[in-house]
């Protein structure tokens, strides 16, 4: 089934005048916009004098994700005001951008009511900016027999009749998307989803919807966890959903591990600082796992825990004891690799200062052949904490002495590299003769790459 949206009216002419009219106390007129396109036209034409000059037709592209939700997964096209938008508006995002730059709308949304949609901007209350009819067409092929992609304009044969409709194809499938089916069957998810869209703004919802669509309708447990995440007050839930979507797309990161990561965030519920901290950790862990998944053919286990045998493929089954948990476990060539992942060097510093995990990592490495352990720090932020003190030594020395490699922001340091780096930084420190707080505030040390050059590390 294919649907066409006919855009029949929009308020996008001489926007400054509209704004002035609104500021001049014409809220009543604007409110009338919600009552219908014709009323709005009259109201604003009457009140704003030169406010509205054009109600002609134009064609708009509507982002696929934006409309898929309301349209039940059907194929959608838009045909609209042909004349009014000759000033270069080509997409809904573009349209919204223009409106945003001229008016005080903070949010936009597209709502569907039966066969009609409305584009609305939030000016307290929501103001109807445009509306259009959604129509079904027989095929994604236009009347010229050329297949259109989503977003492309054309003439289409309306479903169940001889009528030809001008419009933009905004959906190309007859089946409801995973997300739509989930929303149709899960009222709690739908309510939370609506709240989330409201929270982030419909104009920012495209990526979210795409990510949710790739996640939805998996196991019930994952669906439940996603519902919980959406419901939570976690400020980074959109990032988490994207990260989960990316991880699942890899195919070799088990869903149960991702559920485990989500559980960790949800279990941290109640304490905002704890949620934020754990969320950032999970994002780093999933990001690292996704990167690893690109480089290997086997499975990547995320958040492996002790006493559990993990099958890494090729007959390799391994436990992580005596480590309590490890953030990534996988087989790479003949090696079995364990990654301890942190989001920043500050977080790794805390782990090293505690001391137990690094010793357990070394013992795990000793306990079997071809085992490799590595620290991964996702961000360069606070990277100079590599030289802070832990039990009398710098973090770099401790890791280097234990013969563990370290990856910071994608840059790999072997254990020997770390010891050389430590020496070079120590020499630079002595050369400058500055107090530590002034030394580590030097601009050349802020960024890892410029620092490596400054201290002469090759």
């Amino acid at each position, binding site marked *: 089934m294919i649907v066409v949206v006919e855009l029949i009216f929009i308020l996008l002419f001489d926007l400054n005048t509209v704004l002035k009219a609104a500021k001049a106390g014409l809220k009543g007129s604007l409110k009338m916009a919600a009552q219908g396109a014709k009323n709005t036209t009259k109201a604003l034409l009457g009140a704003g004098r030169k406010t509205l000059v054009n109600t002609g037709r134009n064609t708009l592209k509507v982002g696929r994700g934006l409309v898929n939700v309301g349209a039940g997964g059907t194929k959608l096209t838009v045909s609209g005001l042909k004349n009014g938008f000759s000033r270069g508006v080509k997409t809904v995002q573009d349209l919204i951008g223009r409106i945003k730059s001229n008016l005080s709308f903070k949010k936009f949304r597209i709502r569907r009511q039966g066969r009609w949609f409305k584009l609305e901007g939030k000016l307290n209350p929501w103001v109807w900016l445009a509306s259009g009819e959604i129509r079904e067409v027989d095929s994604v092929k236009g009347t010229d027999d050329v297949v259109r992609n989503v977003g492309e304009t054309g003439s289409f044969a309306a479903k169940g009749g001889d009528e030809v409709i001008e419009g933009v194809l905004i959906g190309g499938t007859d089946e409801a998307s995973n997300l739509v089916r989930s929303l149709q069957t899960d009222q709690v998810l739908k309510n939370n989803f609506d709240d989330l869209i409201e929270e982030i703004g419909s104009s920012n919802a495209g990526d979210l919807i795409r990510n949710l669509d790739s996640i939805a309708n998996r196991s019930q447990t994952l669906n439940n966890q996603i519902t919980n995440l959406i419901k939570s007050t976690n400020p980074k839930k959109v990032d988490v959903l994207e990260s989960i979507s990316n991880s699942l797309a890899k195919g070799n990161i088990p869903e149960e591990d991702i559920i485990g990561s989500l559980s960790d965030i949800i279990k941290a519920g109640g304490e905002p600082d704890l949620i934020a901290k754990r969320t950032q950790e999970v994002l780093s862990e999933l990001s690292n796992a996704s990167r690893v998944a690109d480089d290997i053919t086997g499975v990547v286990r995320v958040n492996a825990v002790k006493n559990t045998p993990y099958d890494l493929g090729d007959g390799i089954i391994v436990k992580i*004891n*005596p480590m309590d948990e490890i953030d990534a476990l996988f087989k790479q060539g003949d090696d079995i690799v364990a990654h301890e992942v942190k989001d920043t060097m500050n977080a790794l510093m805390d782990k090293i200062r505690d*001391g*137990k995990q690094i*010793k*357990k990592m*070394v*013992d795990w490495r*000793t*306990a079997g052949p071809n085992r490799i352990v590595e620290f991964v720090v996702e961000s360069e932020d606070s990277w100079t904490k590599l*030289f*802070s*003190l*832990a*039990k*009398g*030594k*710098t973090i770099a*020395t401790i890791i280097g*002495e*234990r*013969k563990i490699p370290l990856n910071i922001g994608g840059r790999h340091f072997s254990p020997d590299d770390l*010891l050389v780096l*430590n*020496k070079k*930084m*120590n020499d630079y*420190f*002595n050369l400058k*003769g500055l*107090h*530590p*707080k002034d*030394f*580590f505030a030097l601009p050349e040390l802020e960024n890892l790459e410029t620092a490596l050059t400054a201290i002469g590390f090759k």
Partner: protein
Amino acid sequence: MVKQYLENTRFPFNLTDRVSFKNEIEKSTIASTEFVEQFENILRLRSTLKLDFDVDFIPTDVLEYAGFLFSNLTETMPSYNDIEEIKIKEVLVMNHVPNPSPKHVNWALENWLLVIASSQQIVILDYLRGYFKSNQNDFFINELLEVIEKYLFREVVSEDLDILYFIKNIAPIQAKILLSRLKGKSKSLNEEIEEVLEELYNAEY
């Protein structure tokens, strides 16, 4: 103070940086008795030192990066015979601890020696783990275990996961006996001791 440490401990090798030290111990001419002697020296030295890196008389900013201070002490006094109070003071001043008092000097000396002992222990245990993988030398193992047993209830052993795992790996049967004695008596590692014992019993050594 320095003299006291010199009397309490005896280093067969210089207080050199870890690379030089590693080269020394990996010389094939060194007898197992020398390893045992060195290992015992390290445990003896560590047991006489306070585990006190966090102090209120060193400015926080300086303390945060004192890893450099200790490295500079090693560079200034690469040999055990080079240790002098005046040199320690010079390094403290260079590392932004002005007018160092005897308290500052003692802090620097004790913690620096602890750093060196800890690094040397890592090198020794690492080397021995590799050595015992391909050499079953019961006499050597027993000598090392005797040293560990001597310090079993001191923090240098009872609070050191490296040594507990080392025992487990080189001598699982004797480890069951030693760790059973230690069970419940460690301040921070009782859980780990229980786990190692469980692993050893499950493996039916």
